[in-house]
């Protein structure tokens, strides 16, 4: 698409997010691009790589301990979206720090590290360890607290839907993360996302990311049972875009905190809708699974627009 007449964001100007300047406003979303390494040797027809123009790769959420995740099947495609029940399978925080983050740094991949934990106080030590181990890294820009994954049995759901808990998680991480951007990723499964965003804002985030997946279920007609062993999954993809836009609008206008928009973005047109509402950046999730270059394409299309 061509630059719309009403567009006013200057894509050429440095994009400041808290204490950092990021290389762009189009990111990949957590969990839909792994640790950002599996695609590193993919090459597009024009010779460019999958990180071209990206503002950040938000890595798959890591937890203090490794997790094997949920039973299979973990994915169901629906009419125009998907349900996932991965269950935060990850290598664990220490292994991530030891092997993954250094490789991202070595490859020059702009990185936001996604963290989850079951107790708010766990976020402090993880942030401190990161600060100690990676403070010299040029490409590590910040941390996104995943306060919203609906697939983790021990609390995930209620966890992120209390403004109090959100504030405690943010405060714990903020105290240990003086020179990197801090984001809180919010759940849409609440009646009042602006209240969560306000709590995150007051506790010191540089931005919130909205939204994580919506609780959904699909039934297998062959058995009459839910497709997913855990019954519920996280709903994502084109189908949730209007919900994400509504939540982003509620946060922008209700909490006045910078917002990174996520939910059903696959094209530059999709991304532009979030920017129109005031999002400072966007993330491409499910669409990145279908095409490792989805975010890079969006970044390329939008990257040349300046406000002048």
């Amino acid at each position: 698409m061509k630059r719309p007449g009403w567009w006013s964001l200057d894509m050429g100007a440095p994009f400041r997010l808290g204490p950092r300047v990021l290389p762009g406003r189009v990111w990949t979303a957590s969990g839909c691009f792994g640790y950002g390494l599996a695609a590193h040797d993919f090459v597009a027809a024009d010779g460019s790589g999958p990180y071209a123009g990206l503002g950040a790769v938000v890595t798959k959420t890591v937890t203090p301990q490794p997790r094997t995740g949920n039973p299979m099947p973990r994915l169901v495609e629906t009419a125009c979206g998907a349900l996932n029940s991965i269950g935060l399978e990850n290598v664990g925080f220490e292994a991530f720090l030891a092997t993954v983050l250094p490789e991202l740094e070595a490859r020059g991949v702009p990185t936001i590290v996604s963290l989850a934990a079951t107790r708010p106080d766990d976020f402090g030590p993880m942030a401190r360890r990161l600060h100690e181990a990676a403070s010299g890294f040029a490409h590590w820009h910040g941390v996104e607290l995943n306060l919203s994954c609906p697939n983790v049995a021990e609390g995930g759901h209620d966890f992120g839907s209390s403004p109090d808990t959100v504030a405690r998680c943010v405060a714990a991480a903020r105290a240990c993360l003086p020179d990197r951007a801090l984001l809180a990723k919010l759940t849409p499964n609440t009646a009042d996302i602006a209240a969560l965003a306000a709590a995150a804002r007051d506790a010191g985030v540089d931005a919130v990311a909205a939204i994580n997946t919506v609780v959904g279920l699909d039934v297998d007609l062959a058995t009459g049972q839910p497709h997913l062993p855990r019954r519920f999954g996280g709903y994502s993809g084109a189908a949730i875009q209007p919900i994400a836009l509504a939540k982003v609008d509620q946060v922008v206008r209700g909490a006045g905190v910078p917002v990174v928009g996520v939910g059903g973005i696959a094209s530059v047109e999709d991304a532009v809708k979030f920017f129109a509402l005031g999002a400072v950046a966007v993330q491409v999730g499910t669409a990145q699974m279908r095409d490792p270059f989805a975010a890079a394409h969006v970044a390329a299309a939008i990257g040349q627009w300046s406000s002048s």
Partner: protein
Amino acid sequence: MAVIGVVAANRLVSSSFHRLDIDLGRPFTFRPGQFVMVNGAGPRALTFSRPFSILAAEGSVLSLLYRVVGRGTAELAAMAPGDAVSVLGPLGEPFPEPMAAQVTILLGGGVGLPPVHAWWRRWGRPGDVACFGARSGAEVPWDLLGDAWRVSVDDPDGLAPGRRAEVGVVTTLVPEAGELPATSPVVVLACGPLPLLRAAAALARARGWRCLVSLEEHMGCGYGVCKGCVVRVADGAGERNATCCHDGPVFDAADVCLLAPREGGSA
């Protein structure tokens, strides 16, 4: 890397197998056992692409063999020459090249034929044994198999005149150990429905042969990033989750559980 190709041909090659030829506009190379993720282009794209083993690739033209089982394969079948199609790949770990003197037994069941067929075309030697099993005689894609393949069918119905097939499961086509050169290492490469893989693994275990299987899981990304396709693997390095798409789809049969999920497998 998700290349937009153009459908060159899309036609039935047996009662239920379709062959899709896609011109990718640039040379495409692969190793037998690898697959591609396929989708419609633009607004016709489904949320997830679908995995298909690579049957062949000549120059810029990639060939797949598929059966219609649901929404994605129905959309494939509706494609006409000239239609745009999105292809990501080649992906995954291939079947290994043969060692010196190795005798290879290839077992393909149904639309599990492509990876073993591609292997046989690339690496096959005179002493190898290529076996294909179909549900019915009508389902056998004879043009692909020619005379070199042994064929079994559950039901001989629809067998082309002059063609021969055993009635029974595909493992009945496998020669006795005594019929094979005594000193050669024997390797079984299998792809097809789980019962076939189980039978292949059991037979190989009983005879002390190595057996490699190509597994199927419903996939999200196909390139290792979503953890939607994990299989439980237990090998020398311990028990862990492996991704079917990136660590597989080819696994050593001794390392994986070949029960269906609902039979107590990966769930």
